[in-house]
């Protein structure tokens, strides 16, 4: 088996990068898992491109620079000094774990079972990532955990590209990258200000704007 051209390992890495921090991780280490997920994504994406043209290079660079480095870096900076950074990504209790396991199983049913078929595995990984992200949104009221869930969800969207017969065209790539950077930029700004000021802006500042 030619590992370089078989995305199975990368897909499993993608899934683990979502599941491990959600089950066992603190928020402080999620940037590292996001980087790992992005690297796996880069591997899959570059395999998808039939030849190393400008588009493939741009897609690869986008994943390495934005998803694997910039966004985790911004998130790490935001987490520094936040009390919430030491919280679990998902509340550690048997009920949440049980629901999460059930969701992952259902996700792979959605993907027609995680057999050797790479397509089914990809669909399962995407569905599992999205549903786990929804679970984090539903069980954790901490804004920074919700932000991490959104970023996992957007990585799933990027992985969805590998199901298409051809890679996304460049304009779609640019829009999706802008969305990823925008989410983390606006999200970090809102999360940081929420943490710093506690109860925010209670005094009316301007009327009838």
């Amino acid at each position, binding site marked *: 088996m030619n590992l370089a051209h078989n995305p199975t390992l990368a897909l499993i890495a993608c899934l683990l990068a979502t599941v491990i921090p959600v089950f066992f991780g603190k928020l402080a280490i999620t940037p590292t898992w996001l980087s790992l997920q992005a690297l796996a994504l880069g591997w899959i994406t570059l395999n998808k491109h039939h030849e190393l043209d400008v588009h493939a290079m741009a897609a690869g660079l986008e994943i390495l620079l934005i998803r694997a480095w910039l966004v985790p870096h911004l998130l790490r900076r935001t987490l520094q000094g936040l009390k919430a950074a030491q919280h679990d990504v998902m509340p550690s209790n048997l009920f949440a774990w049980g629901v999460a396991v059930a969701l992952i199983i259902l996700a792979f049913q959605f993907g027609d079972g995680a057999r050797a078929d790479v397509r089914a595995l990809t669909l399962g990984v*995407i569905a599992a990532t999205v549903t786990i992200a929804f679970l984090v*949104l539903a069980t954790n009221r901490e804004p920074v955990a919700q932000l991490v869930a959104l970023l996992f969800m957007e990585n799933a969207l990027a992985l969805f590209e590998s199901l298409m017969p051809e890679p996304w065209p460049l*304009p779609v790539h640019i829009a999706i990258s802008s969305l990823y950077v925008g*989410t983390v930029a606006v999200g970090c700004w*809102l999360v940081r200000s*929420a943490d710093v*000021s506690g109860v925010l*802006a209670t005094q009316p500042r301007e009327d009838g704007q």
Partner: protein
Amino acid sequence: MTASLSIANSASSAAPGSGAHWISPALVGVALLMWLSAMGVFLTHPLSELPLYFASRYLVLDATSLLFMVVINTVFLVICVYLYSRERHTPALTLDIRSRAALMLLFMAVINLGLMANHLVLLWTLIEVSTLCAAPLVARGDGSNPRAVAWRYMLYSSMTLAITFLGFMALTQSAHLRGLEVSFMVDQLGDSLTTEANGWQRLGLSFMLFGLGGKLGLAPLYGWMPETYEAAPTTTSALLASVQFNISVVAVFRILQIFHGHEAGFVSQELLVMGYLSLVVAAVQIMACSNYKRLVAYACVSSSGVIALGLSVGKAAAYGVVLYIVSNAFVKSLLFLTAGRMRAVYGTNQVGPLSGVIRTLPLTGMLFTVGIFALLGFPPFASFLAEMLILSGIVQSGKLLAFTLMCTMLTVIFVATGRTLFPMLWGAQKVAVKVPPQSWITLLPKLGFVAVLVMLGTYTPDLFTDLLRAVAVSIGG
């Protein structure tokens, strides 16, 4: 205050008297250019020449994109004129005008691109990017916790769009299982659909409509809308209600265009359920509402319900739905901008202290009254004509129970709105307030909205009627 100031300082070095006074006139200038461009395209491109594809077919100029470009750029121009006039009398606004103007322009650029997107994933992404541009604008509100509201707005938006994305996945799986490859180009996606009953295809469609319904404020995912519209600054509420709402409408239209002739019964049922649920939710919430800005926001939920019901009928009500959407864009802006003036004078969004507005602020009170009547669907406004067309479409399609339920809910909403707002407008004055001056420039845009609403309800130029009809035909009318 401190938090808001820090945004302004970090985003720009603008401060009162530091040379930021040119920004709002420049914003009006850019908005005017955008409006002139939209009108120029509308006047120079006959409908027979459309659709026009460009940028390697990723963008398209068709009747749908053209209509909404004209509408949103008109609304944006008026909002910019309003902001300009407010800034002249409110020095505090100068503090963050630079970042605010930049975000508004970015928001409009993204929305205009989204209207023309011929790729469903591109459109999906641009809607979300527009939310990211709007969230910092929402965070500039004057409520108790505007950043928390902005965060929830962003979160809701991401969740609803994630549901839509699940719909894309299901569609891809549906095509794959039938041995077809799917393209998300709007004009090609229809080729990979089947007319036979297909569970994956149906699941995809239901997820997409459910997710985008959330962006339109349709129940059950409507929670973000009243909260955000109330907490955001007036101009931002108007932008969200009249501009961003319409790009979500365009996304729904694109899905209906793609599924034209497929799953019609299923689409109808889903929209019917969401539409009724929204009307019921809006009616109950309006009955319990004592905050005029929130009441207008709930009225927006009910408008979304009417739109969903009209779309569920299909052919018979399509023209009415398009007219209703266009008219609503102007009504919502008129109401939010007028609510901004009342907030400025009384310092509250609560109905109680505002008794007798029409005596204290005759013009503002009159404009708010006109807006409320237009919102409730009274003649001679376009919303009256549109609601009549939708109701007659429902009757023509033989859904008499649906007709009865819609009439009942609209009556409840009318009575509940009147019970809350009419004493506020015409009741005895409870508090004396100092009325700050208002220039004619502040009034001009609102009067323009009233003129457009009356014109759409009484006499619509043939050119514009043809455009409305073309859009109605594209969604099955």
